[in-house]
């Protein structure tokens, strides 16, 4: 299955959102996820099934000012 993660098309071998986060090896604290422009609550990550060409946005927080 191919899904878009933060705009990047990726081949993944998983079926749920929670498995995607594990596969990407992302720190799970204080991140949020949007699936096809709708926020998915953290409690629903396990039960949220992904399908081909889903668009997933995973965000965290950064400070202001110059990089």
């Amino acid at each position: 299955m191919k899904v878009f993660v933060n705009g990047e098309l990726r081949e993944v071998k998983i079926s749920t959102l929670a498995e995607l986060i594990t596969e990407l090896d992302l720190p799970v604290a204080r991140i949020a996820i949007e699936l096809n422009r709708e926020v998915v609550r953290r409690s629903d990550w396990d039960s949220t099934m992904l399908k081909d060409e889903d668009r997933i946005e995973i965000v965290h927080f950064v400070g202001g000012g110059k990089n």
Partner: protein
Amino acid sequence: MRSAHEASGAEMVTVAVRRVPLDRSSESFLDYLSPSLQILPNTAGCYTAEDAVRTARLAREALQTDLLKLEVIGDQTTLFPDNEQTLEAARILVKEGFVVLPYFNDDLIMAKKLLDAGCAAIMPLAAPIGSGLGVQNPANLRIMREQLPDATMIVDAGVGTASDAAIAMELGADGVLMNTAIAESEDPAKMATAMKLAIEAGRLAYEAGRMPKRLYASASSPLSGVIK
């Protein structure tokens, strides 16, 4: 950054929402913040009400806070806010239970509309974001303060140095939000201390009530009893 936060006495720090790098190249910015600081997520980088609302929902989910600094930019060169989109987003977000703190142009009518929409505070700019120009339109801030005495007014953006912060507070602001003035100074912790003192001084001067300005001198020593 942490020493500047401590020196400033700030109680709240605002953070932007961005895509997580998928290569795990960056550490979490939030880990660098003292746990005693209240985190205020913002919608910096949004150019439409729709994007701001999406960003706000993500921020609330991640941080479990209803607080939100609403920022909808209208132009890349000036980073001036798009007041129309800001108001539209504010109305949606207030209905969804957010505590909305909107950044906007220093305009009394817009301030009234934002408060009518249910915003918890008003955050007019002093000057363009990151410009360091200081309060460009003191009359507008003073009018806003006089006409909206009960509103919480935070001056957001444009402060360059300590005297700018003092001026904002003397005009009746309840607080000042800043980044670049401290981050781009040569000694951020020292500048943060200067800002803290300026904010305290400005607030005291506002509460004390300044003397009226006069065009001509007014002798401060008695005029009688001068030797002849």
